[in-house]
C-alpha cells in the first residue's frame, strides 16, 4: 500500500504535466452552469479544431471557478507557466481564439478575462477582476483550475494531506482541533461542527454513520454544486476525517437529482479514492476503515432536512420527523448518525492541513473562516464567490455582483433559500454573518443571495415562497401541509383582488401556528410572510384596500390595454397573443379582456402601443386604519434546534 508521500509524489508529477506543460494546455470548464451556455459544444469544437489543424496542444476539462456570467469558460496554460482565463468562448468563437492563442501565441484579446498566473500585456491579473476582488478562496482555491475527474490533480493541490496528518491524532485531539477552529455547520443552522461530532463520538451503539447533505434544494443557492463539480475530493476527505473523529465507518453522500454531473463526479472521486487506498479498509495503512456510498435523490426539497434525508436514504419516503431524538442518537436505521453539509465537510481538510490558528485568520472571532455565496436574481453578474465572514453584503452584491439593472432601485434581498426570509432594502448594510441576519428575523442560510429590484411585487414573492413550501411539504403534519396551503390561498386571494383586511390577521395567525410544525420546513415556511408583514405592510394594504399592485405583477389587479392614441401600432402584439385576444377592426386594435390571460407577450412586441393599467376601480378609502394587531401573541420559538 502506498503512503501519502508516495501518492503525493506521483500526483505532483501528473499535475506538473498540466501545470507546467510541454506544450499549451487548454482546459474547458465543464460544469452545470457552463453546459447551460454550451460548454460541452465548446469542448467538442476545441477538440475538433485541434485535431483538424494538427495544433501542438493538449485539451482537458476543469470545473467552474464561479464566473457564471462569462460562461463558457476556457483557460490556456503555456509552457512558461502563464495561464489565462478566457470567457464567453462560445463554440463559434473557438477557432478564432485558438488561431490567436495557440497558432500565433498572442495571449490577450477581447475574450481574456484575466491572468490566473504570470503576466500578459493588456490583461489584468484575475485578482483585479471586479468579481474576484475581496474574495478569499480557500474552498474554491482550485475550482476551475484542476481537473475534477483526476484524483492526482486534487492530491497535488493538497487533498488528503490533512487527512494523512489527522490519522496520527486521537479522536479527542481531532474534535478539539475542530472545536478550536470554530467551524460551524454551513447548512443553515450554524451548529458547531465539533460539538456535533462529539455527540456522535460519545454515542455507544455501532455502526455509526456520517452523512453528507448534498441535497442543495434551496432554489437560488448553488454553492455546493460548484464545489462538488469543481473539487470533490476535499468533501470525501472531510467525511473520512469525520469518521475517524467519531468512530463512524460508513458514509453516505446524498446528492439531489437535479445535479447529475455532481453525482457522476463524486461517484468517480469515490472510486478513484478507493483505488488509491484512501477509502475502504485500512486507509493508508493506519487501520482506519471508512466506506462511502453515493445516493441520488429524486426531487424532494424536504430531503434536505436531516431527518427527512435519513428516511430518504433508508428506503422510504423522505419525511422528516420530530426531534429529539437527534440523529446523533438515532439516525440512519436508528443508529448514531451525523449529517453535515458539503461545505462544512470541505472546510475540515483546511483545518487538519493548516491548523486551527491558520483557519481563524479569516473571518471573525465568532465566525471564523470563509463562506461561499451564490448571487442571482436582478443582478448584473450571476456567480459563485467566497468571502470571509463579516464582509459587507453591500460590497459583495454591488461591487462583485455589479448591482441592480440600470435605472432600478433595490426593493428586497432574499438570502438563505425559500425558508430564509426576505430582507428589506435597508438590510443591504448588513455584514455577512448569521447574527445580524437573525436580528431581522432572517436566516443567512446556505449561501444563496437573491437580489430583488423595484419591479418585484412583495405579495407575489411571498405567494411564490409560500407555494414552494406548500408544494414541497411532506404532508406528515397538518400544521405544515394545511398551514402552507391556507397561507398560499390567502395570498392568492389578495393577488386576485379579493383581499380583505381580515386576511392580515389570518396571515399573522398562520405564521404563529406554523411555528409549531414538526420539522424546520413547516417552522420556517412562514418566515417570508412574517418578514414582509413587518417590513412591507404598506404594500399588503395597497393590494387589499386600494385593490392595486404597485409593481403591476399580480394578474388579478392589472389589465393590459391598447393605448387609444396608438391603437394602430399593435400589429406585432396582436400576432404574438397566445389567445388571439387582440382584435383588429379597420386598422385599430383593441384587447378582448375576456380572452386576455395577462401574460405580457404583446407588451414585449408592441411596447409603444400597449400598457398595463390597474384593473380595479379604486375604492374610496378615507384614511387607512391602523395596522391590525395579531390575534394571538407570538409563541416562543420552537425548541429542539
Amino acid at each position, binding site marked *: 500500500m502506498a503512503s501519502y508521500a508516495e501518492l503525493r509524489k506521483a500526483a505532483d508529477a501528473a499535475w506538473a504535466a498540466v501545470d507546467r506543460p510541454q506544450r499549451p494546455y487548454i482546459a474547458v470548464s465543464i460544469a*452545470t*452552469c457552463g*453546459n*447551460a*451556455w454550451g460548454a460541452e459544444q465548446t469542448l467538442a469544437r476545441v477538440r475538433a479544431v485541434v485535431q483538424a489543424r494538427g495544433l501542438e496542444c493538449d485539451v482537458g476539462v476543469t470545473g467552474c471557478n464561479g464566473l*457564471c456570467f462569462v*460562461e463558457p469558460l476556457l483557460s490556456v496554460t503555456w509552457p512558461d507557466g502563464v495561464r489565462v482565463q478566457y470567457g464567453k468562448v462560445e463554440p463559434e468563437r473557438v477557432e478564432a481564439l485558438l488561431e490567436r492563442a495557440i497558432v500565433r501565441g498572442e495571449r490577450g484579446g477581447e475574450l481574456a478575462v484575466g491572468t490566473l498566473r504570470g503576466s500578459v500585456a493588456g490583461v489584468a491579473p484575475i485578482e483585479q477582476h471586479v468579481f474576484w476582488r475581496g474574495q478569499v478562496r480557500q474552498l474554491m482555491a482550485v475550482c476551475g483550475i484542476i481537473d475534477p475527474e483526476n484524483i492526482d490533480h486534487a492530491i497535488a493541490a493538497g487533498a488528503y494531506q490533512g487527512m494523512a496528518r489527522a490519522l496520527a491524532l486521537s479522536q479527542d485531539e481531532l474534535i478539539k482541533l475542530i472545536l478550536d477552529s470554530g467551524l460551524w455547520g454551513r447548512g443553515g443552522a450554524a451548529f458547531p461542527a465539533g460539538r456535533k461530532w462529539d455527540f456522535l463520538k460519545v454515542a455507544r451503539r455501532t455502526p455509526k454513520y456520517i452523512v453528507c447533505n448534498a441535497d442543495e*434544494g434551496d*432554489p*437560488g*443557492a*448553488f454553492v455546493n*454544486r*460548484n464545489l462538488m463539480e469543481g473539487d470533490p475530493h476535499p468533501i470525501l476527505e472531510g467525511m473520512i476525517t469525520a469518521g475517524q473523529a467519531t468512530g463512524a465507518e460508513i458514509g*453516505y453522500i446524498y446528492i*439531489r*437529482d*437535479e*445535479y447529475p454531473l455532481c453525482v457522476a463526479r463524486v461517484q468517480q472521486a469515490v472510486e478513484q479514492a478507493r483505488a488509491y487506498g484512501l477509502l475502504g479498509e485500512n486507509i493508508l495503512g493506519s487501520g482506519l476503515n471508512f466506506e462511502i*456510498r453515493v*445516493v*441520488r*435523490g*429524486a*426531487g*424532494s*426539497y424536504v430531503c434536505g432536512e436531516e431527518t427527512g434525508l435519513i428516511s*430518504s*436514504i*433508508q*428506503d*422510504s*419516503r*423522505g*419525511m422528516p420527523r420530530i426531534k429529539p431524538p437527534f440523529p446523533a442518537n438515532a439516525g440512519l*436505521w436508528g443508529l448514531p448518525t451525523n449529517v453535515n453539509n458539503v461545505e462544512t465537510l470541505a472546510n475540515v481538510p483546511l483545518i487538519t492541513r493548516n491548523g486551527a490558528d491558520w483557519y481563524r485568520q479569516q473571518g471573525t472571532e465568532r465566525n471564523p473562516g470563509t463562506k461561499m455565496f*451564490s448571487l*442571482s*436574481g*436582478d443582478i448584473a453578474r*450571476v*456567480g459563485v464567490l467566497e468571502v470571509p465572514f463579516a464582509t459587507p453584503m453591500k460590497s459583495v452584491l454591488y461591487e462583485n455582483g455589479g448591482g441592480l439593472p440600470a435605472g432600478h432601485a433595490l426593493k428586497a434581498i*432574499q438570502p438563505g433559500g*425559500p425558508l430564509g426570509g426576505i430582507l428589506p432594502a435597508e438590510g443591504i448594510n448588513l455584514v455577512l454573518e448569521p447574527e445580524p441576519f437573525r436580528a431581522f428575523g432572517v436566516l443567512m442560510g446556505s449561501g444563496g443571495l*437573491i437580489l*430583488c*429590484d423595484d419591479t*418585484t411585487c412583495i405579495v407575489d*414573492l411571498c405567494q*411564490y*415562497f409560500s407555494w414552494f413550501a406548500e408544494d414541497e411539504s*411532506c404532508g406528515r403534519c397538518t400544521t405544515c401541509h394545511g398551514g402552507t396551503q391556507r397561507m398560499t390561498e390567502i395570498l392568492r386571494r389578495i393577488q386576485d383582488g379579493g383581499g380583505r383586511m381580515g386576511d392580515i390577521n389570518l396571515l399573522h395567525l398562520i405564521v404563529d401556528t406554523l411555528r409549531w410544525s414538526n420539522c424546520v420546513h413547516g417552522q420556517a415556511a412562514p418566515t417570508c410572510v412574517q418578514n414582509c408583514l413587518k417590513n412591507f405592510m404598506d404594500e399588503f394594504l395597497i393590494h387589499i384596500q386600494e385593490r392595486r399592485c404597485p409593481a403591476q405583477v399580480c394578474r388579478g389587479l392589472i389589465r393590459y390595454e391598447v393605448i387609444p392614441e396608438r391603437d394602430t401600432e399593435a400589429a406585432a402584439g396582436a400576432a*404574438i*397573443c*397566445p389567445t388571439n385576444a387582440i382584435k383588429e377592426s379597420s386598422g385599430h386594435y383593441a384587447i378582448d379582456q375576456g380572452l386576455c*390571460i395577462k*401574460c*405580457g*407577450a404583446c407588451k*414585449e412586441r408592441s411596447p409603444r402601443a400597449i400598457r398595463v393599467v390597474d384593473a380595479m376601480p379604486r375604492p374610496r378609502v378615507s384614511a387607512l386604519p391602523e395596522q391590525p394587531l395579531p390575534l394571538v401573541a407570538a409563541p416562543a420559538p420552537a425548541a429542539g434546534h
Partner: protein
Amino acid sequence: MPDYKVLLRYRELLAPFEADQGDLLAALHALQHAFGYVPPDAIPEVAKKLRMNASAVFGALSFYSEFRTTPPPQNQIMWCSGPACRLKGGDNIRLVFETVLGIGMEGETPDNEIGLHLGQCNGTCEAAPQIWYNGAVRGRLQVADAVELARRLKAGERDL
C-alpha cells in the same frame, strides 16, 4: 403480471441492489433510466428484491417528483420554478406554455408528444428565465419567445 422477458429484464436491472442498504432510490433510478419511467408492474419485483412491502415501495415512488409511473412524453418541456426565473417573469412563461399547448403542469398532450414538467432550480440562474427542452437549456426567454416556441411545437416542429 408482466411478460416473462420483461420480468427477467426487471430482475437483471435490480440485480445489484440489496435489502437494508439504502438501495431503493438507486433501484428506482435504474428502472426509470432503462424505461423512461418506473413501470408499475415492476413494483412487486422491487419489493421482493429489497424485502419491503409493495405499498412502501409505491409510497416512496409517488413521494418523489422526479419518478413517474407512465411513459414519458416524446418531448419534454421542463419549466424552471426557481426564484431568479420568477423575478424575471418565469410565471408568465409557464402560463403561455400551458395556454398554447392546452396542457397543465405535469400534463401531456393526448398523443404523448409534448409534456410539461415542473423543474427545480439547478443554479444556472445566469440564463433566467429558462426552460429545459429535452434537457437542453433555453435561457433568457421573453414571454413572446415562449409563445413562439410553444407555437412551433404545436405546429409539429420538434427541433427547437
